[in-house]
């Protein structure tokens, strides 16, 4: 069953098997390009979600292309370099905000959906994918547990800077990470980013108890 499915998928997916399709559809790149065209014709803008959201930047395009294989080393290095360049430190040089507000950002899942408005509070929804404090048992597992994040790594200025960078733009450290680029894409404000870093790095934060 599995084998048949794979053969069929191969025949249809064109690339990685024989290279051409029985339907004459062309190369893997051609199928990908057509898929993008079909998507652009299949969506309509709604509320705050306009069609420009379907225009990929280089990181998105490369991470889509290498989604099933992981990008080759040189491509990964290019993605990480380009994204590292997008990280801006906080204007006042202070990485730590208020962990209590950071917890609220971590709990909130709204923002940027077509069912939201410009006025909907935007969250980081960290708990959707990560364990953070022990008290919150409803956490997801797409990302690693961040429980005791600062306690395990040390409450150092270097680690504060690293946490800031990771939340700001995860692709700078791990090309094609699943994690949204909360700073680089303008999802969270500078203050919200600081508050999340405090949740991870403040010794008093429940994450570090």
């Amino acid at each position, binding site marked *: *069953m*599995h084998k048949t*499915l794979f053969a*069929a998928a191969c*025949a*249809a*997916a*064109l690339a990685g098997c024989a290279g051409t*399709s*029985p*339907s*004459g*559809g062309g190369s893997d790149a051609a*199928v*990908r390009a*057509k*898929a*993008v065209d*079909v*998507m652009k*014709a*299949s*969506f*309509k*803008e*709604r509320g705050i*979600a*306009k*069609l420009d*959201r*379907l*225009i*990929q930047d280089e*990181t*998105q395009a490369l*991470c*889509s292309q290498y*989604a*099933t294989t992981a990008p080759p080393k040189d491509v990964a290095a290019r993605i990480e370099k380009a994204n590292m360049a997008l990280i801006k430190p906080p204007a006042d040089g202070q990485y730590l905000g208020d962990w209590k507000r950071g917890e609220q950002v971590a709990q909130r899942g709204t923002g*940027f*959906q*077509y*069912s939201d408005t410009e006025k909907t509070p935007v969250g980081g929804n960290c*708990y*959707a*994918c990560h364990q953070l404090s*022990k*008290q919150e*048992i*409803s*956490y*997801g*597992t*797409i990302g690693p547990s961040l429980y005791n994040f600062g306690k395990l790594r040390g409450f150092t200025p270097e680690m504060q800077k690293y946490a800031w960078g990771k939340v700001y733009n995860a692709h700078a450290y791990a090309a094609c990470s*699943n994690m*949204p*680029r909360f700073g680089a*894409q*303008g*999802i969270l404000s500078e203050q919200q980013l600081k508050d999340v870093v405090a949740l991870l790095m403040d010794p008093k934060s429940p994450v570090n108890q």
Partner: protein
Amino acid sequence: MRTRALYAGLLAAAGIVAAPQAAAQDAVKEIEKYREALQDGNPAELWEARGEDLWKRPAGPRKVSLEKCDLGLGPGVVKGAYAQLPRYFADADRVMDLETRLVHCRMTLQGLTREEATKQPFGAGTDRKSDNDALVAYVTAESKGVKMNVPLAHPKEKEMYALGEKMFYFRGGPYDFSCATCHAADNTRIRLQDLPNLTKPAGAQLAYTGWPAYRVSQGELRTFQWRLNDCFRQQRFPELAFTSDASIALTSFLARNANGAEFKAPTIKR
């Protein structure tokens, strides 16, 4: 939001207080029990009955029923048809999923305009019921217990599958999400919600054969087109157009990956 509230209620009902790991395990077990209990009576039957009536009753400018509609197994054959969709239809020269085919039949047989046949694709309360939801409930219920057997023979079927696969991995929007962000790994979850790995037969089978579903938290029967649409909302994409080629391509990819599994829907979900 409603989901969170529901889970919070469940956790409270289960008498769970913060004793982390064990509590998380207990919570998952309680939610599983709740899901099992739901299967006893499924309001989807109300949609199925209304859909059967819509299928059999003469309607539209031509005052004919849909009983001559060819869902792929011949005019009027409903039994088992959904388990072999999407597929290529020569009369439309297009690969169609069920919802696209129903729109086609309501236009070509009953004489409805596209606008009439696609209005209210998803239900929104008792005063805004969706004929599409009801027809889908009726047709899909007639495949209950049938093994998924989606064809991949015609070149256009192969092309749709290949396009759907690429779309599954397409990352975009302010959050850089694709379908694969949540549905390409084993044993992951969002909050306490388990996520099926749709790139493997077991995950695709489990997920695809469970839709449409009556959603308790919404009081509505939700179709597969609705499910795709709502995934894209959470991906922060614009709105996936009803019966668009992207919706058909993704459905082709997922339905074909579910081949071999017994179709179980309409189900009932939290």
